[in-house]
């Protein structure tokens, strides 16, 4: 119909073309990572790892090219106090966890009974994973 009345079909903008490929590359990187973690054969795992790196590189190259062509809006920088807040939270977490690990591990060599592993307790049957 468009050819009949001489009208040209609209073209998909460059940025949309590039973005479709970019988003599929992002998805494929995740899928290769999942495939690698689910593989039992060492050669299959290493193949998926190599393919993940290859796709990750293409995604990075495409992203850089899109950014140079002004097709990508980079998000605005986060405020310093936002970073400060996270540092505060995670410094506290780190200290608490260090303390937890020290307390937990110090009982290991002194023969102290572990609260969750009574001597008479039966070992649960190992589950089967696949």
């Amino acid at each position: 119909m468009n050819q009949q009345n001489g009208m040209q079909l609209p073209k998909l903008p460059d940025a949309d073309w590039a973005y479709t490929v970019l988003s599929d590359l992002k998805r494929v990187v995740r899928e290769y990572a999942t495939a690698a973690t689910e593989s039992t054969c060492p050669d299959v795992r290493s193949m998926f790892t190599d393919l993940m790196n290859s796709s990750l590189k293409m995604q990075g190259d495409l992203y850089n090219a899109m950014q140079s062509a002004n097709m990508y809006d980079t998000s605005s920088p986060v405020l310093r106090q936002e970073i400060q807040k996270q540092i505060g939270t995670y410094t506290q977490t780190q200290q608490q966890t260090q303390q937890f690990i020290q307390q937990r591990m110090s009982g290991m060599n002194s023969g102290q009974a572990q609260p969750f592993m009574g001597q008479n307790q039966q070992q649960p049957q190992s589950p089967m994973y696949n």
Partner: protein
Amino acid sequence: MLQPISGKELEYIADSMSNEDLLMKQCACAATSISDAGLSQLLSNMVKTHQQNYTTLMNSLNQHQQLAPTAPQN
């Protein structure tokens, strides 16, 4: 030493081949539709990489075909 692959691994390889197949066609269309020369060149190089990735997956299937049992085990 190659080991026989599981059904799950076969599914991941087959899904990956579909992904690579779609991406090489997508990149070929994008490379020939985009007017930005740099991006167009990058996308046409990507077509080759996806073709190589597809070949890698196909080679893996061929290698593992030799090792696969012909009758169900157990």
